[in-house]
């Protein structure tokens, strides 16, 4: 099933308990579990936030925002209750890492939520897990029950006199709900339509109260940071990009799997050393570095350090850690088409540039890939995508537009090769038409 892999270059922090039975609470305790939260109980909230800031931990869900800084935005005083919300709605194509954390180390997520709650003064935390991850929800619900039974959550946690509740919550199928404001809407029992920002969740979040929202991997790192120290964590990575992260290698790669590597690890090395290179005698054509929302990199652009700042300088994003490798047997136009079908399908429909833009791009690419494209379509796709950027309540529109701009710019020749009714140069014999039309 979701088999674990390993490579000597791995630096195991958040994955250090994988495969070690840590879903069992006593085993988790043996493996330094619930030590960090007890340490945090004795710390001032500002000291906790400082430690996380010093670690250089940045959001592992995709946006890469400084976790410590996000926590510091929560007002000290609040008329409404404050919350911590774990975003376990992992749905970014190419991403399958939070799944492993829920499967192998659920208590680390609970502990991370607890430490966040202590840092910002929240009395409740929610762990939102996507609906399709039912077996993981079962694991998490059991972990929460057992932590309550032991007195680690609930009233008077660890005999500290403080109360803290942690609750599981489940989704029911929607990529957009992974966007933090749509996540809150979903948790409140509504359609997952994003909210306008400002106000930001740290000030006005769940049921109007200040809410810290972090990705599951981000939170699972927090206990390690509290125990090992922010300096230690920061030094594992590169300046301003502390720590390690889970990279999901997938696609046309010899050794797909989830590997934990230091921030700043070279992408070329990741593909060829860790991933074993491109199988079946094929060559690398493109890489999506951090989930489908990230502009692709060509084979000439893979000599890049995989941290937030370096990949941004290279014109893409570190994103969710979903490294999707594409070989030269694949059709980039078809790849772009499938990507647009995804965004069109998942667009919540609230904002016109996204709802209409993704639909137009999808329809154009269907026609184009089938041989019905005209030259003008290529520039139109770029122009339309550019006009979607920054005009929506949430980044889903950007997530569709930016990859399209990259595909068209970097693979223009391949688009031109589809013109004038030619059959797709990559189409295999007997493969039927695309569905989800």
């Amino acid at each position, binding site marked *: *099933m*979701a*088999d674990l892999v390993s490579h000597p270059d791995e630096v195991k922090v958040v994955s250090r308990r994988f495969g070690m039975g840590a879903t069992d609470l006593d085993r988790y305790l043996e493996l330094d579990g619930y030590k960090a939260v007890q340490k945090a109980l004795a710390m001032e909230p500002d000291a906790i936030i400082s430690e996380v800031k010093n670690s250089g931990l940045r959001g592992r869900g995709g946006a890469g925002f400084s976790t410590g800084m996000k926590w510091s935005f929560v007002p000290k005083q609040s008329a409404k*209750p404050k919350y911590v919300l774990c975003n376990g709605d*992992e*749905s*970014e*194509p*190419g*991403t*399958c890492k939070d*799944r492993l954390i829920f499967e192998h180390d659920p208590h680390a997520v609970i502990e991370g939520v607890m430490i966040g709650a202590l840092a910002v003064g929240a009395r409740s935390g929610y762990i939102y897990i*996507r*609906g*399709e*991850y*039912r*077996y993981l929800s079962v694991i998490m619900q059991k972990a929460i029950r057992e932590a309550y039974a032991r007195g680690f959550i609930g009233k008077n946690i660890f005999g500290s006199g403080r109360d803290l*509740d942690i*609750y599981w*919550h*489940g*989704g*029911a*199928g*929607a*990529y957009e709900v992974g966007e933090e404001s749509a996540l809150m809407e*979903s948790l*409140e*029992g*509504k*359609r*997952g339509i994003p909210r306008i920002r400002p106000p930001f969740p740290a000030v006005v979040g769940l*049921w109007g109260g200040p809410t810290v929202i972090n990705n599951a991997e981000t939170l699972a790192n927090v206990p390690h940071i509290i125990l090992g120290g922010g300096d230690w964590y920061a030094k594992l990575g590169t300046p301003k990009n502390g720590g390690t992260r889970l990279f*999901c*290698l*997938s*696609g*046309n790669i010899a050794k*797909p*799997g*989830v590997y934990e590597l230091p921030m700043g690890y070279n992408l070329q090395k990741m593909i060829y050393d860790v991933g074993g290179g491109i199988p079946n005698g094929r060559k690398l054509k493109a890489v*999506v570095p951090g989930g*489908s929302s990230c502009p692709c990199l060509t084979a000439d652009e893979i000599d890049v350090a995989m941290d937030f700042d370096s990949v941004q300088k290279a014109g893409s994003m570190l994103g969710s850690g*979903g490294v*999707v490798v*594409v*070989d030269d047997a*694949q059709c980039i136009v*078809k*790849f772009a088409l*499938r990507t647009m079908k*995804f965004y069109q*399908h998942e667009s*919540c429909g609230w904002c016109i540039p996204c709802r209409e833009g993704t639909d137009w791009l999808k329809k154009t690419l269907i026609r184009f890939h089938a041989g019905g494209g005209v030259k003008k379509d290529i520039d139109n796709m770029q122009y339309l995508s550019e006009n979607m950027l920054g005009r929506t309540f949430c980044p889903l529109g950007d997530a569709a537009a930016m990859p399209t701009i990259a595909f068209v710019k970097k693979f223009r020749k391949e688009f031109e090769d589809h013109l004038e009714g030619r059959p797709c140069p990559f189409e295999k014999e007997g*493969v*039927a038409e*695309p*569905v*989800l039309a």
Partner: protein
Amino acid sequence: MKFSEEFETRFAEMVPHYPTKRSALVPTLLYAQDEVGFLSNEVIAEIASRLDLTELEVRNVISYYSMLTVEPRGKFVVQVCTNISCMVRGAEEILHHCARKLGIDHKQTTADGLFTLEEVECIGACSWAPAAQVNYDFHENLTTEKIDSILDDYRKRGTQ
């Protein structure tokens, strides 16, 4: 309308987890659907009433979430991912094999009520692609031979 004891226990426990009853809606709908097979008019009316919502408000929410359905489906819902990581590793062959073997297309159900086929978006199995879910179970590192035998196993299970 009453659900199973397991559902009722879970529901009673879950509602007080939130400051508003409405917040329990989405997970409750999915658990109800798991039990009844689909969100029938009766189920919708019952859940709406329990959470102090109108049926319209509940239907608005149902229509947003892809896992929720107001139509009955097969006993086994075969969800084949064809998103990018699965696509480049042969997902389309897997999907088409299922369609041919079962004799149905996307979102259709076999006449015997055993299987519904769906082409789905990323299910979080990218490093073990191509992959599918049948109901909630993951089936990964698929080949056409493997999915063939998996479907045969489900058919045996379903006709016992």
